[in-house]
């Protein structure tokens, strides 16, 4: 009975704390500007099914991709087991679903095999980070925290999976001994090999089984509450993030309607722009100037660095790293969120995303090549943020290098980015 009460309190606390954090993240994301990404729902479901559920972009790199699918499948499916654990925990039952008989055995067996695959995957991942030190996992933005975050997650998964398998082994051994309420249920293709490692006394076995049970479920609840602070939040956000991702041709940059209205008014004095929907700045200086999808992108980023590893600017030693663009956006958004908690909405701390986080040197190094958006396994678009920051620098500040300014004035005056006379446009036809 006491166990049931402790369990229920732990469960409730974990769920409440998690909801509070998620609410905060949703509030932060909603600091962004509105944008309509609910068109073409069919295509959106399809994209989500393919990219998030089907992990189509992960397997572009086969080793990491397949291992990730193990871990991901394991994670999702083993969580079905959590449902049973929760019911058992609240009602003091033991293996409540065992009445399913052979289907139950099938389920437990699959969980075990998946748990083993997860262990393999996670150990490979750890090795890549710790032993091999893959280049993709380093870089200026990969400071102490993001690096340890990745390691923590992997270690937690090793512990959770080990606890799960040990629990099953102890349970199985007790079943074989016909002890107390340990009815024969389930099938244990993996943990049966652990039997020899366990003590024979039923008391110790019960202790181990219970300890692992508690460790496993409390671990999961703790992990749940770690998610919102970690890159691991992508396991949730990958789904909405792909659903709301950009479906247009990658080469197409968004149209700024605020500019369209001004340009129309300039070209045609009789044009009356539709009643100002929102007065904001042109482009983005800070996170609030970005749209909510860009902000959700920031929370979804897995910090995998696939974008940066294909970025031509980064590859040639420039400061720009699309992963850093996303991590900076998230860090700044978190900061703005904390300011809001402390001082209320609209508090100005004198800082901004541009300059305090992302430098001019970074945004101007981009070739807008779309390699980053193509590589991102969860359809994040760092390029759109870079372009919005540029728009601010150009249209609000006129702060660009002389040569770009010269290009602008050439386009404006000569109709070409170079200083040639428009009258010479057809000269190509007069040569051979």
């Amino acid at each position, binding site marked *: 009975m006491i166990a049931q009460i402790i369990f229920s309190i732990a469960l409730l606390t974990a769920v409440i704390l998690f909801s509070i954090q998620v609410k905060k993240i949703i509030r932060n994301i909603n600091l962004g500007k509105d944008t309509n990404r609910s068109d073409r729902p069919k295509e959106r479901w399809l994209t989500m099914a393919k990219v998030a559920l089907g992990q189509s972009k992960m397997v572009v790199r086969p080793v990491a991709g397949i291992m990730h699918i193990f871990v991901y499948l394991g994670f999702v499916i083993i969580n079905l087991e959590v449902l049973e654990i929760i019911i058992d925990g609240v009602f003091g039952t033991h293996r409540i679903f065992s009445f399913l008989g052979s289907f139950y055995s099938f389920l437990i067996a699959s969980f075990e095999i998946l748990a083993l695959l997860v262990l393999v995957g996670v150990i490979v991942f750890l090795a890549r980070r710790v032993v091999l030190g893959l280049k993709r996992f380093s870089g200026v933005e990969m400071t102490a925290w993001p690096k340890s975050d990745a390691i923590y997650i992997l270690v937690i998964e090793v512990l959770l999976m080990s606890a799960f398998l040990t629990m099953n082994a102890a349970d199985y051994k007790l079943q074989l001994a016909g002890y107390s309420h340990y009815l024969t249920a389930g099938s244990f293709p993996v943990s049966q090999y652990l039997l020899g490692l366990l003590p024979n006394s039923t008391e110790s076995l019960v202790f181990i089984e219970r300890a692992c049970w508690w460790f496993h479920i409390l671990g999961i609840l703790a992990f749940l509450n770690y998610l919102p602070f970690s890159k691991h939040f992508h396991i949730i956000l990958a789904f909405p993030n792909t659903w709301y991702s950009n479906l*247009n*041709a*990658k*080469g*197409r*940059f968004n*149209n700024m309607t605020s*500019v*369209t209205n*001004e*340009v*129309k008014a*300039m*070209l045609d004095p009789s044009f009356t722009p539709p009643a100002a929907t929102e007065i904001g700045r042109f*482009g983005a200086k800070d996170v609030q100037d970005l749209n909510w999808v860009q902000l959700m992108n920031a929370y979804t980023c897995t910090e995998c660095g696939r974008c940066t590893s*294909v970025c*031509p600017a980064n*590859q*040639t*030693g*420039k*400061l720009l790293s699309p992963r850093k663009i996303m991590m900076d956006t998230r860090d700044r958004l978190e900061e703005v969120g904390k300011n809001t908690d402390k001082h209320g909405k609209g508090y100005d701390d004198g800082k901004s995303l541009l300059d305090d986080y992302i430098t001019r*040197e970074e945004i*101007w*190094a981009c*070739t*807008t*090549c*779309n*390699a980053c958006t*193509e590589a991102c396994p969860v359809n994040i678009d760092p390029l759109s943020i870079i*372009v919005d920051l*540029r*728009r601010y*620098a*150009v*249209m609000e500040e006129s702060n*660009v*290098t002389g*040569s*770009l300014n*010269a*290009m*602008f004035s050439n*386009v*404006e005056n000569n*109709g*070409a*980015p*170079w200083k*040639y006379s*428009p009258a*010479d*446009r*057809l*000269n*190509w*036809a*007069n*040569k051979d």
Partner: protein
Amino acid sequence: MNANTIEPMNTTIKIPTMAEMMAAGEKPEILFWVGCAGSYDERAQRITRAFAKILHHVGIKFAVLGTEESCTGDPAKRAGNEFLFQMQAMSNIQVLDAYEIKKIVTACPHCFNTLKNEYPELGGNYEVIHHTQLIQELIESGKLKAEGGDFKGKKITFHDPCYLGRGNGVYEAPRKALEILDADLVELKRCKSNGLCCGAGGGQMFKEPEKGKKDVNIERMDDILQAKADVVAVGCPFCMTMINDGVKHFNKEQEIEVLDIAEISAKVNGL
């Protein structure tokens, strides 16, 4: 030589402008959007001429805007100057609509992308194709010859332009146009959706690069040298400039030829 004429193999062809066609009460099947690089850059002008010869050779009735053409606004948009972009776009749309243009072909992936994807929202709706797509169609319909000729047995590789490939998902058309030659088509290490940029996009063409270890086109040369290609085929005037500079950087002008797909097709057809 007369104005607006080029002379392939001693036959003079006239490059008609829309204004001239209009005056004659005619309409072209397709507008050839030349683009700024294709109009002014010496090397790119050769691509423009090669493509015009192809259009003439297969008997497509085409026209250019000539002095009425203006920058699509692409470099301004990528560099963050949305005002300038939209000013350019709207005045271009006025010109295009005045001539009732329906279909456009261009040899520049940047113009292609902008006209195709970014003009509709500002009221400009046209069917826009890249010249490699038209060349592929012409080969398939048998209007363009495809046997290798000069390229027989040569190693050819293709450098994907970002705004054609990743930007618009066109990977096959340029390859189809090359495959058909009796050449040895080799892929670069980073190709198709994983292709490496030449370094010119996003306004980089018009500014000094930021500090770094090397320039992007030099990095791209790693792939090109590794492929040991005799010919690097390109489909963009900016890539042409960057890859040419890269080849020069390594003093490989003798070994490696950089040609646009239009130039290759024109050559194969004796134009």
